């Protein structure tokens, strides 16, 4: 068969593959099979978190456009309120179409929001939502959300991890109506200072590596790795040096100043829960964001009772899975991009039915997972205490 005929047949075969049509028979089935393998290879989802990270950069780079402020009709204004799949990401959000527990980079194509096919009704609701977002009292808006559901049972093999600290919070500590939560892994280089303001009500920072000095204008509770079992109060305005394994916990609004006076970067696992929007907050200047999980805004579905906040470290060998702890109200995880030997790794996860994530890479990963649940729920082995 002439080469051109074979080339035509292969081209038709490939066009059918990429467009989802039924591929025709080819004169060279072996070559067609090879082409099919390559096309299948190209359909992999991006790593968890990449979609959201790039979306945030696009938003930053895309606007504002006019004298430092968005123009009244600038679409950037809307982009700021949309997630990377077209779903609203603001307190003025619409019904989140993706049920089930949220995990970093989670995306279910079956629930993709097709705005154009949704028609004018969706557009009208979007515009209305934007108007609500600009209301000074928009926090009172009732936000539909389906992000917070009871996680499914863990499927073995999974890693339970080791609790690095455990906080019991009295009833009423969690946001009473809607909430946003951010959980991330960030680093700061040596000889750098950074400030951040927490709107409260809850925040913790765990030092995964290195050391850093922290000072707050609010009262902190400090967990010291070399003296575990009890949270120590630190008065406002008092600088405190945190080393690897230490943590701080803060309730209420306060400003924090971080200073890395060491010669190595400091790595921090950061969590905060707000009763406002902005669960997808950008890390303060001076920090580098490596991984992040967030709920931008959701209705509270956890009970109004004492809560326990647990941070676990999970060493996740290739092929093992991590899932929300059974019974947890809310849980996310972030993965470090260094392994225990200090080597750079690229965390790669595959999402499994039921909400678990599998380490599909070839290297063991260090994962930090937090969970909120009832104080009566059995915890992973480790330390515990109350602030």
């Amino acid at each position, binding site marked *: 068969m002439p080469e051109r005929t074979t080339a035509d047949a292969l*081209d038709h075969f490939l066009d059918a593959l990429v467009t989802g049509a039924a591929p025709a028979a080819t004169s060279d089935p072996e070559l067609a099979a*090879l082409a099919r*393998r390559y096309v299948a290879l*190209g359909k992999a989802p991006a790593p968890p978190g990449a979609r959201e990270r790039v979306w945030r950069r696009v938003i930053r780079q895309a606007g504002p456009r006019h004298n430092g402020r968005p123009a009244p009709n600038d*679409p950037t204004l809307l*982009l700021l309120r949309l*997630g990377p799949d*077209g779903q609203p990401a603001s307190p003025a959000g619409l019904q989140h179409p993706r049920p089930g527990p949220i995990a970093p980079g989670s995306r279910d194509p079956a629930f993709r929001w097709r705005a154009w096919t949704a028609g004018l009704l969706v557009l*009208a609701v979007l515009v209305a939502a934007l108007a609500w977002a600009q209301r000074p009292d928009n926090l009172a808006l009732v936000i539909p959300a389906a992000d917070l559901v009871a996680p499914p049972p863990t499927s073995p093999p999974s890693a339970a991890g080791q609790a690095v600290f455990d906080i019991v919070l009295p009833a009423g500590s969690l946001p009473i109506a809607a909430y946003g939560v951010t959980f991330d892994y960030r680093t700061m280089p040596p000889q750098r200072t950074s400030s951040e303001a927490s709107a409260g009500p809850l925040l913790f920072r765990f030092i995964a590596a290195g050391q850093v000095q922290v000072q707050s204008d609010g009262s902190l509770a400090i967990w010291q790795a070399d003296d575990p079992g009890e949270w120590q109060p630190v008065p406002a305005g008092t600088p405190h040096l945190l080393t690897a394994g230490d943590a701080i916990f803060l309730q209420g609004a306060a400003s924090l100043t971080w200073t890395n006076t060491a010669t190595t970067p400091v790595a921090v696992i950061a969590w905060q829960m707000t009763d406002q929007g902005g669960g997808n907050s950008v890390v303060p200047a001076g920090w580098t964001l490596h991984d992040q999980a967030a709920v931008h805004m959701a209705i509270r579905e956890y009970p109004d009772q004492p809560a326990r906040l647990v941070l676990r470290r999970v060493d996740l060998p290739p092929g093992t899975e991590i899932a929300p702890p059974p019974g947890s109200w809310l849980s996310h995880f972030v993965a470090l991009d260094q392994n225990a030997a200090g080597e750079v790794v690229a965390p*790669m996860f595959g999402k499994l039915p039921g909400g678990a994530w599998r380490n599909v890479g070839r290297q063991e990963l260090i994962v930090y997972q937090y969970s909120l649940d009832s104080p009566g729920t059995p915890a992973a082995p480790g330390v515990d205490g109350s602030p």
Partner: protein
Amino acid sequence: MPLPQRDQLHDGAPTLEAVGPAVAFAELYDEYFDAIYWYCRNRLNDAATAEDAASTIFTRAFAAGPRYHDPGLRSWLFTIAHNVVINVYRANRPQAPLEAAASLPDPVMQLEDAVVADEEYRRLLDALRQLPADQRQVVELRMAGLTGPEIARIMHRSHGAIKMLQLRAFARLREILAELPGEESSHA
């Protein structure tokens, strides 16, 4: 809760005319992010650089909003991607030709790691990296889901030339894979 009517909106709120392009862009992002990401990642061999490139690509696409509904959307988007990848690579490696990107050592995991821990994928990508640059690009654009005419537009060649190029690319891949150990156990 009654929704506010349009005439009740505050000054400065986006109008319906502005909502359309933003939603269209978000849809474009949703549809093509994975393909763009892996195209960049595979060409640039680095996750962070690939994310930088992807953000640049989508920012440029957003700036050109009216084109969201062009029939040639995918080829237009991947033309941007092609140009951005070249610029990124040249900026990072000003002394090296673009073709050298194929032989860069991998500082982080490669595509195969993300797909599944499967030896077959590693072999397929190893073979892909041994192709000449133009053949490799045809296969990578196929992997990104583009049709033959779209690839022709991106590479500024005739569709007939692309057909011959991809035939030779896959034929060469078959030869390379046959020379690599373990092909007998793969489902060729």
